[in-house]
Each structure stands twice: as structure tokens, then as C-alpha cells.
């Protein structure tokens, strides 16, 4: 189909966000805004030690405090376990990071609960702790779990299928290295474990009730984007006797992380199970920073072989992933990360062996970029050394090596996929042109301009993820006699406008006014299964389910209308609540008449498809002050091809979101700082955890191409997740070029720049070459 000729009523048009006014005027009801009768407030007592056994715990004084309804410790908490492997207890006798949960309190007010938590007396047997990922692997290192010798987690996530991807092995690495014109052996870490930091901290309200016949029912009001997935997670924790209902309202951001909320949710559930009253648990910003979820730490130690023409002949070595105190999804992130590396860098010979290690710090888990950002931010600086030696322009390198139709990659389920998406070369050219790459790129370690102590440099990065068609989505679309439609989808709006887009898609298929389409709350009691907006699957996977449901409903409507119009189903068309015969538009009937005392329900299901990838390229121009070490982001250009824009403002918002939430700024100042001796997270506050404010935004230009994705009804694919992922390594590249010395540690803080400048001055004095990494 020639999509250029195709016109849409809503797709690609700017339409107001339905929840917009409510959100900006404070009318939207977030979890903390909900009213409950008889509500109790839950608080968590947290560990002062990074690693300790609870020898004795006395909650007597806390329990006696007026207004306290429950105190739970490892002794009386339900034995709920989660994680991969499933060895992580809700409350354990052992604490594994400073800030780990020790006890829970439910009280009539937050203040009383807080006060009671301070009355709990705990005797600890303090154990030696380990904070460094390499140290944790050494023989004799403190061991976090009896079940995990050497602190190493078992590879693979069973959720991904029988043969989950646990490493990248392909071809013959030795042979590949022999074919190379240059080999670099290098180490690089993307290990500053930034926090995605959604505005709304983790929280939940839970109500446990008896459902009769020895069964229990628990209802949970959550702040995350995927209520149905949360239901599956919670059901697996509570067991089959408990009916779980999850309700997701507006969510103040997630960036992936909020689906790691099983622990705060289960805190509320456990307290409600004890008290049989609704219990609310709201993490403070400090808890959010110090005791929730961080990006995994990534350290790469590899050999890369490259030819003069930019062909990568071999990539081999070790990838160490630090997951902190435990893993929920780290193995899955490693699997996706491995696949994403293969998408970004064509290479016949691979041998990259991941190892996931536990240490005594807060856990790592889902953060947008999901393994791929972690791997690539460490890989690209090493590839850069090779490119520099062979004088290869990184834009040419990316263009040459990003996956193209006819090629393929291993994906998370361990299977090979032949790529059947689009060629992104044209988009890459366009991005480079808009950025002015050719004029600004002066070669490796060469500044674009020097003026006094100010030096500018440019860098580029790329990211692609075959998650646009991952996992299953289902939706219903109900048609009503009044000409309206209702979309049933288990989405909770987490800021991206996904619910709006679902409405748009249904309205487009049914050709009815947007105002005539409603969408259910993300309530598992109402809607069919929806995996949730993860990665960039919103457009390709979620919308496809909605589209199919709307198409099926439309077809059922025509089946009812056809006999009334004396016509075949295939001859009918509809718009604005009227059905007519295409050949004779005078023959028409209103939905109202067809649907008299009747509703129609269409069901749509999306089955996973891993043969497609999105792509984003980020160009940055940095300014470095060689006297103070200050680095500034002067300009960002993002280039992508989304097939077809669904919602222009939503897309712009996603692309402009490339800086924060552990994105580009994780190369500039976002990092989590753990005290080397106490294991305490030192910057667990919004002053010392540096994140960009809106006063500090550089100019961002977005180049968006629309080359149709043929397999989608609207020829569209999502890109939202990956907008943070291409930029961090580009920052390192740009800063290195500006200074004239390799900077390969995230983030590029003034002390590192000044050190590099001094090294460079020394080098000029000694007239030496740089030694390889």
C-alpha cells in the first residue's frame, strides 16, 4: 500500500491529551490522592548496616504505642519471596544493604508509624560487606546469599523461554581477530548506577479481604504503568489461593523502574493482611533514591578487531553486571542488552560472556535502556579506540554497522531473528546533515573549536531495540448503541500519552469522533491481559491489539448491519456512527439502530514479533572548560525513523526526554555515590543527586523520518524508551574530542576533565603517544 497517499483523521495529528488539564491543574488522582475509609499508614525501618544478621529484634515498645496496629519483622511476615532466583524475602533475617528493610509498621497516621519504627530495638551481628563488583567475585569475598556461591547469579531468565539468551556467541573469534587491521584490548565501565528518578516516588495502597471459602482477595492501587503484569507478579508471590486485583491510575513517571515495586506493594499488602484495613506505603524521596532501584552497573573487558573499512571482525571478552543486593530482571536485561549490541554492531564473530554479581548496595533493576544502554555505553568507547586508530568517522561506522534488512541478531529468547525492518541509513544521513557533522567533525581527539580555555567537541551514538514488538497485548473494543466506543486496555498512564494513543487508534479504525471513544481504567478486574508499556512496544504491540479489537468490533457491526441494508459485509463502510453501502451511500443506517439494546465486543491480540528494531542516533556538541573542568552540553540532535508519527507532541516529549532519567545526563552528572566504607548512599537527596532542571536545557532538535513499517496498520513503530540510550557514549566521545584525551569514565565530572587536561599537558611536554586503554 502506498502510504503517502493515505490520509488519516487522527493519526499523526496533534490532539490534546485527554488527561492534560487534570494533570496540570492537580485534578488527576494519583495514588496518594485517593481517599480510603479507615486507612492505615505503613512505614519501613531500614538497616544501618550494609550487611548484617538480625540477632534480636524487639518491637514491643513500638506495638504499645497508641495508634499502632501492626509491626512486622522477619519473624512474623508472610514468607513471600521474589526475584531471579526466587530467594529474596520480603523481610529477611539478613540485611544486605544500608537501607534494606528490617521491619514494617502500620499506624493511624504517618507520624505515629514513623515514631513507632524508631522504637523497634534491633541487635545486629555486623558482617563484612562488599561494594565493588570485581571484589565480590574474589575468593573469600563476603557472601550475600547461601544460595549464591561467589555472589554470582545464575544466568538466564526463565520468563524469556526455554533457552534464554545468556551470552553472545557467534562465529570464530580467533579467526576474526586474525582478519583485523587493528585490535584493541580495552576496559570501560558504565557503572555510575544512576537513578531514573520519576517525580512520584514508589507507593501503593493495599486492602486484604476474606473472599469466603477459605480464599482471600487483595486489591492493590499502584503507581506503575503495567497493572496486569503487576497482578501476575503479585499472584506468583501470594500463591493461587489469593485473588489479586491491581488498579493503576495516573502514574507520576516510571522510566521502567516502577515495575520493580513489588517490595513496597508487598509491604502494604502484608500490613493489610495483618490489620484487614487498607494500608498505604509511600516512599520518601530519600527512600526512592537509596532503597528502591538503580540502573545495573556495567563493566566491559574486551578485545575488538576492526578492519580499515570499519568492518568489525571480532568482539570477545567479559561483561560484568553489578546488580546490587538482588535481581528481579537483571538476567533479562542482560539478554536484551546482548541482542541490542548485535543490532547496533554488525560482527560475525562474537564471544561476550556476561556475569551478574551481587554486592551490598541497593538493588539494580529495570531502567529504560534495559541492558542495552548499559552494554553499549561501555562498548562504544572501546570501539572508538579502534576507529581512532583506523581513522574511521564514527557516523560512517554506525551507518555501516547498524542492522539492515537481510541481516539479523540473536534475541532474548536465544533465537536468531532475520531482521525484516527498515534501513535507517537515510535517517542517519539526515541527522548528520542537520547537526552539521561534516563541518564539526575534525577527527578523533580533535576539538571542533578552541577559544581560550573553552574547547568544543562533537560525538555521536546509536541505539536500537527489537522490543517494539515484544510480548503480548490484548484489548477489547466495545461498541455501544449511542455511537460510542469503549477501549478496554490495562494501561496506566505514566506520562507518555499511551492511553490517548489507544483512543486515537480506535477512533481512527472506527472513524468516529475522538470524544466518542473512552478507555477503561487500568484495572485487572475489567480489562484483558496487557503486558504494559515497556521498552518501545506501545505503538507496535499495544496499539496493534487495540486496532485489531476495533477492527473485529467493526466487522461484527457490519455483520449485523449487512442484512438490514441488504448488502454484504465487505460492501460496507462506516464513519461517525453511520454505516453505508460503499457503492450506494444513500443506503445507510445508524449504529443506534443496529445496536438497539445490544453491545458489540471486539477482541484484539498482539503476538510477539522480534524481527523489527527501532533506531535512534544522538549527536551532541559539548563545551569543555580546560581551566575549571566544567562541561556543558551545547546542542543535541536526535534522529529517528518512526514509520508514521502517531502523536507529534508525545513523540517530541519522548525525544526531548533524552537528557534526564539516567540518560545523556548519566554521562554529565547523574550518578549514585556510595560511601566506600559504610555503603551508605551519600547523595540520596535532590541536591546532591544532580539532575537537570528545566532552566538548564540545551537546544534539542529532532529529526524524524517516516519510512513506512509495512507490517503495522498505521506503518508505525515506537521509539520512546531508547531516547536516553544513544547519548551517554556520545558525550564521552565529544568530551574526549574537545579535551584531546580519552575520557572513558561516566560521568565526565570536572575532576576527571582536569586530570585529563593535565595528562594532556604532560603528554605534550613529553611528546609521547597515548598508550592504548
Amino acid at each position, binding site marked *: 500500500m502506498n502510504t503517502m497517499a493515505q490520509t488519516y483523521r487522527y493519526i499523526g495529528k496533534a490532539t490534546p491529551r485527554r488527561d492534560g488539564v487534570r494533570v496540570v491543574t492537580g485534578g488527576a488522582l494519583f495514588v496518594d490522592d485517593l481517599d480510603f475509609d479507615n486507612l492505615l499508614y505503613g512505614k519501613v525501618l531500614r538497616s544501618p548496616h550494609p550487611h548484617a544478621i538480625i540477632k534480636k529484634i524487639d518491637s514491643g515498645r513500638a506495638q504499645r504505642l497508641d495508634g499502632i496496629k501492626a509491626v512486622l519483622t522477619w519473624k512474623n511476615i508472610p514468607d513471600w519471596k521474589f526475584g531471579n532466583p526466587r530467594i529474596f524475602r520480603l523481610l529477611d533475617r539478613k540485611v544486605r544493604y*544500608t*537501607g534494606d528493610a528490617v521491619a514494617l509498621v502500620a499506624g493511624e497516621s504517618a507520624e505515629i508509624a514513623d515514631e513507632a519504627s524508631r522504637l523497634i530495638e534491633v541487635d545486629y551481628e555486623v558482617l563484612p560487606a562488599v561494594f565493588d563488583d570485581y571484589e565480590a567475585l574474589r575468593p573469600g569475598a563476603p557472601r550475600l546469599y547461601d544460595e549464591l556461591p561467589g555472589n554470582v547469579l545464575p544466568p538466564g531468565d526463565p520468563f524469556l523461554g526455554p533457552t534464554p539468551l545468556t551470552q553472545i556467541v557467534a562465529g570464530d573469534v580467533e579467526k576474526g581477530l586474525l582478519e583485523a587491521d587493528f585490535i584493541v584490548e580495552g576496559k570501560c565501565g558504565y557503572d555510575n548506577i544512576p537513578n531514573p528518578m520519576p517525580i512520584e516516588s514508589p507507593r501503593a495502597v493495599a486492602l486484604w479481604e476474606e473472599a469466603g471459602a477459605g480464599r482471600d482477595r487483595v486489591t492493590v492501587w499502584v503507581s506503575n504503568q503495567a497493572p496486569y503484569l503487576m497482578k501476575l507478579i503479585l499472584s506468583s508471590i501470594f500463591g493461587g489461593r489469593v485473588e489479586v486485583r491491581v488498579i493503576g491510575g495516573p502514574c507520576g513517571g516510571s522510566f521502567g523502574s516502577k515495575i520493580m515495586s513489588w517490595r513496597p506493594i508487598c509491604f502494604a499488602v502484608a500490613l493489610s493482611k495483618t490489620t484487614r484495613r487498607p494500608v498505604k506505603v509511600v516512599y520518601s524521596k*530519600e527512600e526512592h533514591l537509596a532503597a528502591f532501584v538503580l540502573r545495573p552497573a556495567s563493566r566491559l573487558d574486551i578485545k575488538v578487531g576492526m578492519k580499515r573499512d570499519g568492518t568489525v571482525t571480532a568482539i570477545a571478552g567479559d561483561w560484568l553486571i553489578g546488580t546490587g543486593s538482588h535481581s528481579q530482571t537483571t538476567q533479562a536485561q542482560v539478554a536484551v542488552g546482548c541482542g541490542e549490541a548485535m543490532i547496533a554492531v554488525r560482527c560475525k564473530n562474537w564471544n561476550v560472556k556476561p556475569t551478574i554479581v551481587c554486592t551490598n548496595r541497593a538493588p539494580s533493576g529495570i531502567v529504560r535502556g534495559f541492558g542495552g544502554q548499559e552494554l553499549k555505553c561501555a562498548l562504544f568507547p572501546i570501539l572508538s579506540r579502534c576507529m581512532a586508530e583506523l581513522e574511521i568517522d564514527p557516523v560512517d561506522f554506525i551507518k555501516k554497522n547498524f542492522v539492515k534488512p537481510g541481516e539479523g541478531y540473536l534475541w532474548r529468547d536465544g533465537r536468531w531473528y532475520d531482521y525484516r525492518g527498515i534501513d535507517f541509513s537515510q535517517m542517519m544521513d539526515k541527522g548528520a546533515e542537520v547537526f552539521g557533522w561534516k563541518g564539526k567533525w575534525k577527527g578523533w581527539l580533535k576539538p571542533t573549536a578552541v577559544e581560550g580555555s573553552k574547547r568544543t567537541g562533537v560525538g555521536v551514538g546509536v541505539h536500537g531495540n527489537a522490543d517494539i514488538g515484544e510480548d503480548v497485548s490484548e484489548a477489547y473494543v466495545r461498541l455501544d448503541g449511542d455511537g460510542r466506543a469503549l477501549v478496554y486496555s490495562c494501561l496506566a498512564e505514566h506520562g507518555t500519552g499511551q492511553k490517548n494513543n489507544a483512543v486515537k487508534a480506535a477512533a481512527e479504525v472506527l472513524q468516529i469522533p475522538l470524544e466518542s471513544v473512552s478507555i477503561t481504567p487500568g484495572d485487572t478486574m475489567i480489562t484483558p491481559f496487557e503486558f504494559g508499556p515497556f521498552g518501545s512496544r506501545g505503538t507496535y504491540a499495544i496499539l496493534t491489539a487495540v486496532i485489531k479489537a476495533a477492527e473485529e468490533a467493526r466487522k461484527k457491526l457490519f455483520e449485523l448491519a449487512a442484512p438490514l441494508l441488504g448488502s454484504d459485509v465487505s460492501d460496507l463502510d462506516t464513519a461517525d456512527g453511520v454505516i453505508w453501502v460503499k457503492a450506494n451511500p444513500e443506503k445507510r443506517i445508524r449504529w443506534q439502530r443496529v445496536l438497539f439494546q445490544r453491545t458489540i465486543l471486539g477482541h484484539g491480540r498482539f503476538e510477539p514479533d522480534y524481527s523489527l528494531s527501532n533506531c535512534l542516533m544522538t549527536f551532541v556538541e559539548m563545551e569543555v572548560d580546560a581551566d575549571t*573542568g566544567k562541561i556543558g552540553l551545547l546542542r543535541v540532535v536526535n534522529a529517528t525513523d518512526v514509520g508514521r508519527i502517531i502523536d507529534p507532541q508525545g513523540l517530541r516529549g519522548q525525544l526531548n526526554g533524552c537528557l534526564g532519567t539516567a540518560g545523556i545526563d548519566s554521562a554529565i*552528572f547523574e550518578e549514585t555515590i556510595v560511601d566506600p566504607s559504610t555503603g551508605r548512599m551519600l547523595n*540520596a537527596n535532590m541536591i546532591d543527586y544532580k539532575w537537570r532542571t528545566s532552566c538548564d536545557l540545551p537546544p534539542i532538535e529532532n529529526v524524524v523520518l517516516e519510512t513506512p513499517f509495512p507490517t503495522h496498520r498505521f506503518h508505525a513503530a515506537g521509539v520512546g524508551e531508547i531516547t536516553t540510550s544513544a547519548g551517554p557514549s556520545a558525550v564521552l566521545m565529544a568530551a574526549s574530542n574537545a579535551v584531546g584525551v580519552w575520557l572513558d569514565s561516566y560521568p565526565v565530572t570536572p575532576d576527571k576533565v582536569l586530570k585529563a587536561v593535565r595528562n594532556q599537558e604532560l603528554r605534550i611536554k613529553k611528546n609521547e603517544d597515548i598508550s592504548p586503554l
Partner: protein
Amino acid sequence: MKTFLHYDAHSIEDALSLLCRHRDRARLNAGGTDLLGLLKDMVLPRYPDLIVNIKTIPGLDYIEEDSERLRIGALTKLADLARSPSLSKSYSAISEAARAVAGPQIRNIATIGGNLCQDVRCWYYRYPAHIGGRMDCARKGQGPCFAVKGDNRYHAVIGAGKCFAVCPSDLAVVLAALDGCMTIVSRRGERRVAVGDFFGPLANALEADEMVKEIDVPRTSTSRIQTFLKFTLREPIDFAIVSVACAIELTEKVCSDARIIIGAVAPGPFRARQAEEVLIGREINEAAATQAAQAALEGAKPLAKNAYKIDIAKALVKRAVLKNNSPVV
């Protein structure tokens, strides 16, 4: 947040008598931008039972000038300092420093007295109690200074002993450069303390029964060329990694007197006397500025992770000296 009694004071005497009676169980609250954070995180060894609101005391919010001095009431808002035309004209460094603090919302409630009296930002000192308990350190009267062996990237490089936290106040740096003085009152009487002497190694000079009433700056400062530079990791809402205030008196193009104060490198605003001496008697030019910058932090003893602050301080001193003194082209 743990509860406390809250009392609106209606006069200085009112506030002082409460302080006198409750001593360290009471805390004064002006804008509250610092105090509330301390309370929420339960940082203080002694959580106050009583908060005395001094915003309700009339007559402490003023900027007045006479032939002798500039006088600023302790409750004057930073936003008012930032936008005062008379300050911009004659005491520009004060407005610049006020503008450099936090963001507009905070400047609208934060006061100059509070800015000078705010507690340190050391992340060990400020560690939130509800994440595994308060960190008892030397500044709290028990324990070591955790920064010495810990992550000390933002800590003092000079002049620290038992505690390596740095003075976080931007106004203090400028006021020290302008020879500013604080009037401190208690029921025992009134005393004057130079801003440069207000900050001690473990606490400021304020006794439990005292409050700051006024800040004044001698009129002589107006003839000086004033500069304030602040280096932060992000532009708005950040504390200085290093800041520098310069006040230079030129007589016939030659520097006849100079104050060079470096902020965020020491427990108080650090007066770089060696740098001042380099400048006095010389024309201000690139060579003099470079030499002054080199001398500015001579004798500094950085910790493991904060030597870079010395480089930044040098660069800032040089820039500050040259900024408003560049020869007219």
C-alpha cells in the same frame, strides 16, 4: 515529619526569651528552606521541641544605606537582595550572590540571616536518619569526620581540622569580601561579629540563645570593584563547589587594597591573603591575576578526592580578578 510546637514570635524580645528558656530544644525559623530539610531528615542530634517563627517579627526586613554603611535586616529575602536597585548599583556582588542561590521559589522565602546561619551540606552530616540512622560525626559532637576517609569530593581543602564540611553560604563569601559585619543579639546584649569570623570549625559563632539581627557593610566597599563567581555542577539550584568574591580598590590604576575570598573550600569563607598581597601595589593584569591565583590556596591540603577544587579555585580567582578590571580596549 516528627511534630513540634510552633510559636509565632512578634518581637525580637519575644523570640529571645523563648530561646533563653528552651536553649537547644528550640530553633528559630525564618524562611525554613534549610531548617525543614534538617528536621525531615532528623539530622540534628537534638530534635527541637519548639520552632520559633521569626517571620512574624516586624521591622527586620530592610535594605538601608547611609553615609557610613549599608544595613540589611536579617529577615530580608534573597529575592529582594537580588532585585534591589541600590544594591545592584553600589554592592553588585551582594545581588549577584543572592541571585546565585537556589531558584526563584526558594529566594522568595529564604532570608539573608538564614543564608548565613544555614547548616553545612556535608552528605555525612546530612545523611537522612530514616535510611538506616543518623550518622553521628565530629560536628554532632560524637564520632569522626567521615569525609576524611570517605567520599570527600565536595569537602574542605584548607583550614579544616575536626570537620571538613565547607561553608555553604554564597552571601558569606561576598559579605566577607566587603568587610561585612553581623549584629547578634541575645538577652545578654548585643555583639558584632565580622562575617569572616562567624564560621568556626564545628559550628558558627551563634550561641543557643542568640539570633542575628542585622548585617552591615561599610560604605567604603562601594568604591571597590566587586566580583562574585560561583562554580556549580548544574546551573540553577546547586551549592558551590567553589566560589570566589573579589573586592579590589584601585588607586591610579594600581591595586591599593584587595579582598579575595574563596567559598566552599574551607569551614568558613576563606580569605586568600597571599593572593591579596600579590595584587597590592600592582596594576591588575593577566600576569598579576595568574600569580594571585597561584598563591590563593597555597598551603592547601586536599583530601583524596577534592584536589580538583584547588584548580577550579585558581581559575576562578584569576577570572574574578580580571573580570571587572580588564584594561579598557
